[in-house]
């Protein structure tokens, strides 16, 4: 997994609330057996017309936002299906950070497993950042994960919270499975005890 530390990039505004994972990556693209290549299908049904041409006023089709690496989005981002194809598609498009007032739990977890930083901010801070993002390519936003800070184009700083474990995983690009496998003894010990207590399992 790619590490995340600092990022300065254009942020695309998506004020819609309840952006679900079916919107982020529609089901017809879930038939892949790979992780890569989903970026072109990100937000497909909002982004393309039926004939495959681009929907002009969709935010990521506008010249200012084609290279956006940050999304500033409405409440409850990533709700619905558990599909990890959603963060894979975001990542493949180039998005490394999503800012919202809240995230659905499974999506939130999936982001951390893929080097994407989901940041939760207050409704006031979100409207400020939404305004910043609406200014387009000239208004980049900077994220500093170590310091837990978002810096707006006018220099204003917003502090954000993140739990230690997820922060550590992102900063180091940790292989979580490898980490757990080091605890093999404990898992085996747990299994032994359980076999005695609940033999039906």
């Amino acid at each position, binding site marked *: 997994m790619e590490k995340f530390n600092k990022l300065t990039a254009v942020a695309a505004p998506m*004020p*819609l*609330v*309840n952006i*679900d994972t*079916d*919107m982020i990556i*529609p*089901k*017809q693209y*879930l*038939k*892949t*057996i*790979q*992780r890569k290549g989903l970026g072109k299908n990100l937000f497909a*049904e909002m982004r393309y017309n*039926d004939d495959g041409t681009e929907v002009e006023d969709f935010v990521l089709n506008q010249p200012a936002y084609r290279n956006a690496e940050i999304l500033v989005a*409405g*409440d*409850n981002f990533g*709700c*619905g*299906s*558990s*599909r*990890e194809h959603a*963060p894979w598609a975001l990542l493949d498009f180039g998005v490394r950070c999503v800012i919202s007032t*809240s*995230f*659905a*739990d*499974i999506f939130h*977890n*999936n982001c951390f*497993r*893929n080097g994407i930083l989901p940041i939760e901010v207050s409704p006031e801070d979100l409207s400020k950042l939404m305004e910043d993002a609406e200014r387009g390519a000239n208004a980049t936003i900077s994220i500093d994960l170590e310091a837990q800070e978002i810096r707006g184009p006018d220099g204003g700083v917003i502090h954000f919270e993140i*739990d*230690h*474990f997820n922060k*550590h995983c992102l900063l180091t690009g940790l292989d*979580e*499975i490898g*980490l*757990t*496998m080091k*605890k093999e003894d*404990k*898992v085996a010990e*747990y*299994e032994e005890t*359980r076999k005695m207590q*609940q*033999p*039906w*399992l």
Partner: protein
Amino acid sequence: MGTPRTLYDKIWDSHVVDQLEDEAYILYIDRHLVHEVTSPQAFEGLRVAGRKVRRPDATFAVADHNVPTKDIEKGITDPESKLQVDTLEANTAEFGIPYFSMTDDRRGIVHIIGPEQGLTLPGMTIVCGDSHTSTHGAFGSLAHGIGTSEVEHVLATQTLVQEKAKNMRVTVSGDLPPGVTAKDIALAIIGKIGTAGGTGHVIEYAGDAIRALSMEGRMTLCNMTIEAGARAGLIAPDETTFEYIKGRPYAPKAGTYEQAVAYWKTLNSDEGAYFDTEVELDASELIPYVTWGTSPEDALPITGSVPAPSDFADEGKRGAAERALKYMGLTAGMKLSDIEVDHVFIGSCTNGRIEDLRAVAKIVEGKKVKDTVNAIIVPGSGLVKIQAEDEGLDKIFEAAGFEWRQPGCSMCLAMNPDKLAPGDRCASTSNRNFEGRQGQGGRTHLVSPAMAAAAAVTGHLTDVRDLG
């Protein structure tokens, strides 16, 4: 006696293997269900790293999302769908994981066959790369959806790195009036707390109305918990639960069964246990629900009208309502019961069980599906199909003009040949009315099986209580 604990606390405590750091724990997973859509990249990850599946015996796989519900004997024609299902079959063979093939009578939607086979038991931790894993919480097991990276983590280690969620209790008191079902309770709750209302929580359902529900009804309710934003829903196991489990193929056998029941009886929230959030609902006041928009929280009693964007105080919600009305092709103020449908879909892991099909048969027996409506019924599993046919339900459905299909996810998410065309409007017993969920441009109204049956007969959303 220590501090009183909730049911969630108890299951959590009994599965902690180790604490990694502050809030992060290694949690042991008792049962891992696997399907074709969210697992290929996980198996690939194992292969690349040279890792094995730690407990194939605690893992179980079936293909459901891509499986056609017609002429299954002829196989899958869509090459991508076929590749995904073939990949699952190859992966389960390579890693030694039990698997029900596409022609096995016991196959079906993963969340239907888990309980049906006795793979789902009280007090277990259960995961699957699918958000509706919350269904299994109906048995008092901690069950939730995970992403594909987590699927790989569980395959390799039989554990998951987790942070503990908060406790929420939803108490539903009183008796459900006739014509009102578990699905209506679910929609009423989501309408009340919103699709983000349960975020960060595990919801325990309690109260007389919940105790009175069958296992099927409890599964419907827990299934929809994810639509309220909570990863898992829980119902403390009781005699109804034990009765359901007894004798199922993977359930504990005589001898250990009694021992298991004795343990299961300890699985309930202690008196005085702390809940971060409490929600209360009076079942006796409920009316059948329908959704009008593109989020499950857009739920209203059938006696209501389509709201206007200006009815919402929040700016984001106003925008979402405007967009939803446009997508759904509805005008504010129109009566919900005036909305005409051209499709009816009965099935899915929410409402594809035998009790759901019986409820439909009761409504449609001796009646006809309106000629403007295309109506399909898709049993949740091969065994549900056989049971329904033994009871003669298929005859009632076909006589009424329904199509009777083979099991699968079907039109719940249109990854298989069953889908809506742009502009089609469907009364559906599934769980999500998101844009494009049942087919690009398709319009979904979520309802209970009885309400779907009523809509099939009249051709519009209908209060099932008015149908003689």
